[in-house]
């Protein structure tokens, strides 16, 4: 009799808590995987596609699903380290096969530049730009909106007349950085 009572009591408690947990899992369901958003925040948002995914968010999703963390070339070692911290995995060196363009050049920010005399107005670069930073129409000269360009390099390859090149942003007093190690410049004039 006592045993039956104990089973009954414990069973009913288990049923109550089970129902509670079941309700909670429905009521407080997390829609998206929050890790994807966190990963997406770490990525540089150049939308360059060098990782093999069509943008930063898809790559974030892929990393969350177990893709290698070392495919983001614009983010570099810093981003890999941050992703490794977030995912709790080992830091890996950057996968060189996902680096496009000239890596030996300085890592200063670059933007695309259209040599307007050579542009034939084919709109191929406009279709390639992931952030709509190129304006122009068919048979009209195109140009880059510098402030919107992420320097992803994707417009360079599709150009049939090779009129797009990547140029370093010039130093202005707005983006200038103090550099104590540099040799002091004396202007002669």
């Amino acid at each position: 009799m006592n045993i039956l009572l104990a089973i009954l009591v414990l069973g009913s408690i288990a049923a109550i808590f089970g129902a509670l947990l079941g309700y909670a899992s429905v009521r407080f369901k997390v829609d998206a995987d929050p890790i994807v958003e966190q990963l997406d925040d770490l990525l540089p948002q150049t939308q360059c596609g060098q990782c093999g995914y069509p943008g930063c968010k898809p790559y974030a999703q892929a990393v969350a699903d177990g893709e290698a963390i070392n495919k983001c070339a614009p983010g570099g070692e810093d981003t890999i380290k941050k992703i490794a911290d977030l995912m709790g995995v080992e830091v890996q060196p950057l996968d060189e096969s996902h680096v496009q363009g000239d890596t030996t050049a300085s890592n200063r920010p670059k933007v695309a530049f259209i040599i307007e005399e050579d542009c034939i107005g084919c709109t191929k670069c406009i279709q390639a730009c992931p952030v709509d930073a190129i304006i122009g129409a068919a048979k009209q000269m195109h140009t880059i909106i510098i402030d919107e360009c992420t320097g992803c390099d994707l417009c360079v390859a599709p150009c049939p007349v090779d009129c797009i090149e990547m140029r370093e942003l010039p130093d202005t007093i707005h983006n200038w950085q103090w550099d104590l190690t540099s040799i002091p410049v004396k202007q002669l004039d």
Partner: protein
Amino acid sequence: MVESVIERITRGHFWDFHGGIHPPEQKMLTASKPIKQLALPKQLIIPLQQHIGREGDLLVKIGDKVLKGQALTLSTNPMVVPIHAPTSGTISAIKMSVIAHPSGLSQLCVFLDVDGEDTWRKKTVCADIEQLSNSEIIEKIADAGIAGMGGAGFPTHIKVNSKTDINFLIINGAECEPYITADDLLMMEQSNAIVDGIKILDKLLTPNFILIAIEDNKPKAIKALQQATAAIEKIKVCVVPTKYPAGGEKQLIQILTGQEVPSGRLPIHTGIVMQNIATCFAINDAVRHDIPLIRRVVTVTGQALNKPQNVWALLGTPINFLLKQCDVQAIENEQQPVIMGGPMMGFSVSSELVPIVKTSNCILVPSKTEMPSAFEKESKEVECIRCGQCSDVCPSQLLPQELQWSAKAKDYPQLEKLNLSDCIDCGACAYVCPSQIPLVHYYRIAKAEIRQQQQLDLKAEKAKTRFEARNLRLEKEKTARQEKHKKAAAARKAAMNIATPEATGAKSAVAAALARVKAKKAAQSQSQSQASTAEAQKNLAQSNELATEATNPVDEQKTEVAAAIARAKAKRILKQEAANKPISSNEGVKQTVTAQLEVSQPPSNDDKKAIIAAAIAKAKAKKLSKAADAVKSVNLAESTAAEKAVNLTDKKAKIAAAIAKAKSKALAKKANQETPITTAEDIHLEKIKAVRVESKDESDSKANAAADKKIRISAAIAKAKAKKKLKEARNLAGTVKNNDQDSG
């Protein structure tokens, strides 16, 4: 609370701020001499941007003659203040030039060749400011291009256009930085004008109290202002104890009112507005006398000068002109540092052509004994000994050594936790550091990096939203396109049921297929018998006829393939028959030939292989022309030159086919009965080779033709096109080869 503040002020009891230092003042170098009026320099270099914010739109061009006080830029935005011609003259250049910035970078400057006449533009002097409305006064201040003259250069018209209730208006005459006496001298000489400027601010802001803060090391200035304000109850001259950096905005507010401005907030949020002495003077000039901001008092000092003094410098005056006027000693010394701003917060300028701007209050040219550290190339920095003196003197109550470590480690989140943004760059920590660590430099680097990072984050955020917006748009376009395709497909289906030329074409293809099946069946069932051979021949002839007739209908390709298969079948049967009964097969051939006479008119009756070869060659030619048509359709949008070239290909391909046909005929005539197929194959291979070579040549000639039409097409396009065509020609050759292999 407010009453007690005023009571304390009237009693001369003030609060104190944390830390602070007492560096040697060195103000006696210039404090006793009047402000000198200088002769006009030969050329002025006027940077378009002299304040925080953005540069205005240029109103002048090279060669323009401008009058003194004439506006050179137009303000289109509240954060833009205009600049004015400091004297009359001619604009000789508008180009990049080194400006007063620690980076030594260039910015767009207007070069003004001074004509020496100093002719004013028309001035409208305002006798009574009471008649002006507040908005009119603010407009005058904005048009005069006044930006805070204490150091930061914040546009004044924004600061005085406040909607909130102002409790205290504080006029900052503390001038705490060593060496500088520009405000001191201005207060001594122009106290009435300054008070008039303060009255204008009073009218605009209607504060409860106006406090003029002056450090107690300027007795003459205090006396002058006390006399000038004696009649005005509202204005109190506050003599504050000398301590660096008492002139810092937040520090001075704390001294006078005991209030601390919260981190990340502006004084205006606590009902306080602060203006510099020189700004008050400029406001008076602008509103009453219609004189825009074109000159300022600059302290030119340092022991490397024989005559250190304060001067009235026109904005745009190059530093070397000022130094010459003050008789610089060591100009031959290449290493002579020239510091713009005070010794604590100033920076070395990279060129002596750097012009005076609205915010430059001091040019310091120290001698080697005076400031040895400025002459040293190498930093004498040693390890931090954790003495903590820096945090004792920090006026913002930060932890400078912690900040320094984090700055060196580039640990920016930690720096933000330590409130680096509250650092005012005063340099007190570096001044007391026994290890000679240039702490402020590390903070400046870190601040610039953090600012850069914030900009990058903003940009990344923007890129993300744009990317997502684009994807959404593409998705929409795709669904719209699919919808359209669906509709078009439905329309096509509907059209198939009605009798149209297209539908008939499709039906004829079906009929051809049926005939083929029949022929196959007939051949299978009657292959053994002799009589069947003749029928098979007939069927073959029929299918051949069908094939040739089907040239006209739409579905060419299918018919061709069908015909080829039928021919192959017939060939097999014929071979079998030939092995069994050579005579009857000959008869069959005769029938075939008669059937085909209307198509190809072969020269001999007994050479069936030649006919087949010719038919194949014709099919090849057709295919070739079709491929050429495809090329044509690709190039439709291109120039007429390209089209012509394609037509050329078409023609040439036909000619080639005809030649090949003729050749094959001739060869077939000679060909032996034992090895007819191989011969035909050889012929084909030869022909294809010829076609391939020709098509390559044609692509070259095409490129040439296109290049000839250079009038409208640039060389770049031609190159690109040639590249494309070569590729296509190669593809074409490849297809032809494949077809050959299939049929062979």
